[in-house]
């Protein structure tokens, strides 16, 4: 267990009379990290210095998050060295999945692990509040300290995480994809704050996959590709004047020699008939919040419609509602002209599954049985339609071959596959089944390539396009704007459970971004 420096501001001031926040220099040299069978980092070298925002950029699965974790000491390093000026104590990490106890108040989360105490180990929350308020004053990061953490908005939770890191006296802050859950405006605020902290002398590193953020805010950029650092250099201020040139250089480094995976939507007939029509969908969650609030849109046969939005604006519920897993949903889901009946039993659900294929966004929770074999996973829920063991084996083999599941071994435990191959299994089950169904109409995909390597993503994109070519309507929910722009015929933007904008796939990122915020002029 690491010992944490006391967060007493007076103490810190005494140790650092001027430039109180000067962060440590962190030298990471030729490290390699392995999780189980998978090399997450093969070789990475990077030096993080205080004073600027370091951006770490790369494709999904390139090893950027792991690099941060290795720097903070959370990752199982098998080779290389991590040298940190004055010890690891001064490092704080903000994880992509927030490390907050949702049942706690914000203040309790803030002090957790570093609690000020009175006699007999009693919590001194008054003192904690005083310190927290001083910290909020200084940094401009505001959080309602008395709110239950689960009630805080995503942006607020992130500010709480950063405050906690500062509260613990960290002078180096590592953030893993901090803007993935933020609106562009919030992201800008975040970078302003981080910039101010860096100017104050802190060491700041940010993992991101958004090029525009790097060009606008970073003073140093590192590119990772396939577990290696392929580029690491400072960005001079005048380079920002030629963003295109910088962008080209970084893009080349990210992609390497590989051709970019170019899937494009199939041609859409002008007179294609409407396959899916969503009418005034409303869903109220347990807390009484309208997570879907009068949603309406239509998808034509053979059309791929992308859904963009900041996470937590109803995407997950939309997928579940169309999948038939939200019994409380009001409004109509019309498929091929006929209104879908409410799902009351699993029999109804099976019926819907013959017309609607679903890939859930959290494959570990809703999609995959990690401890069952690949073969079992490929036919989950389908046994009643398969005629005997021979037919089952043939079907499994067909799906493994079609999607290139690697290794192609039906008996292998699904949990032992890489993330990309696990996702192939989930997508193979959904798409291959629906394409064979006589009642096929719609495919709904939630974050189909999240956390998936480039090769698997290309396979999955190809299969999605193939499904659309076969006349299926496709609803694609994704946080990856690039994916949406490449695959969709149209992009719908969801905000607070409503569709607030319909944009062409050629729309600029910032236009989509403003719409995601619910801004009127979008």
């Amino acid at each position, binding site marked *: 267990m690491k010992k944490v420096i006391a967060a007493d501001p007076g103490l810190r001031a005494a140790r650092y009379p001027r430039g109180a926040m000067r962060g440590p220099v962190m030298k990471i040299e030729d490290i390699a990290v392995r999780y189980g069978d998978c090399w997450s980092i093969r070789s990475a070298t990077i030096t993080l210095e205080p004073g600027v925002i370091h951006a770490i950029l790369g494709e999904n699965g390139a090893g950027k998050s792991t690099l941060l974790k290795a720097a903070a000491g959370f990752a199982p390093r098998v080779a290389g060295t991590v040298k940190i000026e004055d010890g690891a104590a001064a490092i704080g990490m903000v994880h992509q999945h927030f490390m907050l106890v949702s049942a706690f108040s914000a203040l309790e989360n803030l002090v957790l692990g570093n609690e000020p105490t009175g006699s007999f180990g009693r919590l001194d929350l008054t003192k904690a509040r005083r310190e927290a308020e001083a910290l909020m004053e200084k940094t401009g990061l505001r959080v309602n300290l008395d709110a239950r953490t689960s009630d805080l908005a995503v942006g607020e939770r992130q500010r709480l995480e950063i405050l906690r890191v500062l509260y613990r006296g960290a002078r180096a802050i590592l953030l893993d994809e901090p803007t993935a859950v933020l609106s562009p405006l919030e992201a800008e605020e975040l970078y302003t704050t981080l910039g101010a902290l860096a100017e104050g002398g802190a060491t700041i590193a940010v993992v991101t996959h958004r090029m525009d953020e790097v060009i606008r805010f970073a003073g140093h950029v590192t590119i990772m590709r396939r577990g290696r650092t392929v580029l690491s250099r400072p960005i001079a201020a005048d380079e920002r004047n030629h963003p295109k040139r910088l962008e080209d250089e970084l893009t080349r480094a990210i992609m390497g020699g590989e051709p970019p995976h170019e899937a494009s939507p199939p041609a859409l007939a002008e007179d294609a008939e409407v396959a899916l029509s969503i009418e005034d969908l409303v869903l109220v969650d347990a807390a009484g919040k309208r997570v879907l609030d009068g949603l309406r849109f239509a998808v034509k046969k053979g059309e791929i419609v992308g859904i963009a939005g900041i996470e937590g604006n109803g995407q997950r519920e939309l997928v579940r509602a169309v999948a038939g897993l939200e019994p409380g949903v009001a409004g109509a889901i019309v498929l091929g002209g006929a209104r879908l009946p409410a799902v009351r039993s*699993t029999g109804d659900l099976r019926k819907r599954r013959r017309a609607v294929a679903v890939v859930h966004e959290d494959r570990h929770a809703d999609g995959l049985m990690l401890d069952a074999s690949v073969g079992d996973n490929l036919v989950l829920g389908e046994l009643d339609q398969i005629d005997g063991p021979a037919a089952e084996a043939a079907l499994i083999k067909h799906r493994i071959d079609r999607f290139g599941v690697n290794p192609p071994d039906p008996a292998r435990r699904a949990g032992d596959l890489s993330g990309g191959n696990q996702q192939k299994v989930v997508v193979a089950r959904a798409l291959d089944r629906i394409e064979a169904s006589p009642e096929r109409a719609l495919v709904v995909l939630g974050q189909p390539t999240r956390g998936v390597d480039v090769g698997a993503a290309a396979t999955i994109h190809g299969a999605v396009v193939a499904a659309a070519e076969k006349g299926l309507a496709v609803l694609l929910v994704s946080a990856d704007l690039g994916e949406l722009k490449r695959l969709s015929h149209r992009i719908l933007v969801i905000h607070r459970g409503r569709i607030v904008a319909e944009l062409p796939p050629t729309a600029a990122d910032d236009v989509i971004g403003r719409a995601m915020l619910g801004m009127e002029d979008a």
Partner: protein
Amino acid sequence: MNDKRARALLPIVLAIAGGILLFNLIAFAFGQAPASALRLAFEGTWGTPYGLGQVLFKATPLLFTGLAFEVALRAGLFNIGAEGQLGLASLVGALVASNLPASLPMPIALPIVLVTAAAVGALVAFIPAILRARRGVHEIITAIMVNRIVDAILPWTFSTVLGSSSLRTADIAPGAALPRLDRVIPSFAGSAASFAFPLAVATVFAAMALLGRSRPGREIRWVGLRPEACRAEGIDVERRMLLAMLLSGAIAALAVSSTALGYKGYYELGLGAGAGWSGIAVAMLGRGKAIGIVLAAIFLGTLEQAGLAVNARVPREAMNVLEATLIVLVAVASRVASQGARAAASADPEPEPPRDKPAPTPASEEARS
């Protein structure tokens, strides 16, 4: 493949070795020279045909209760209510058997009794099952409550309903009785091993094969592995859980074949008690395989019989201590082995960041490993 099998066996070997060591320690604590107690235990079990017969007799109910625990475990459920399920089923089964006409032939009488007992066992299991499936109440608490209630119902039935003071039923009809094994293997003479043993072994193999190959069996296992994924794909999770639990209760109830039907010829209070608990150990040692369950039941049957053999010198309760310890030992040993196996699995060259949150291992798998 060989390596895999070795890994599966290692926990059992380690656990049994640990068990023997512990037995010696206990024997030593009771002032016995360890080797002599061990020799006594062996002579009373595998040392003579009679002892062997007794081992099989003791193992028979454990085959049923072990299988019962395994069936529920496949669905991620812990059926620790086998005691109550078997208890009430034994009573009702014996009552039915004693009221059948004496002339009824075995092919008719025996199935009637077994089906009745199984139905009662399933009915008793229904209470924790339905509360779990519909209300999300943990089956362990409810199963214990039901066990306690059955514990009170049994003597009450004898004293208040039947008005008998002997706390036993009348003798069962001859057609419902299972003959002793010494009819075909004369050297078992005197031991209580009956045809319930082959019946139990056959049940274990048949049930395990069905669980592995049939659609309901496979779906039960899937539901135990990840109910959310099954629900999303249109599998009726609640119904599969209910089915597993009811099957479990019914199978546990079949143990009546070895006690009231194959041994005493009537049911008396306390007959077969304890088999439900030992069944848990059998399932844990059996590692989810039919042959494993059979061997584990025979092993624990040996322990029970050995307990009787050494009772004069070391209290036979020592064997129950051993049994509980074995559950822990085999769980720890197999956890270690499975971690080793995962580390040794072949490498996948594709690098992937561990971005996804680690999914919790489902109860049914974790319990086994």
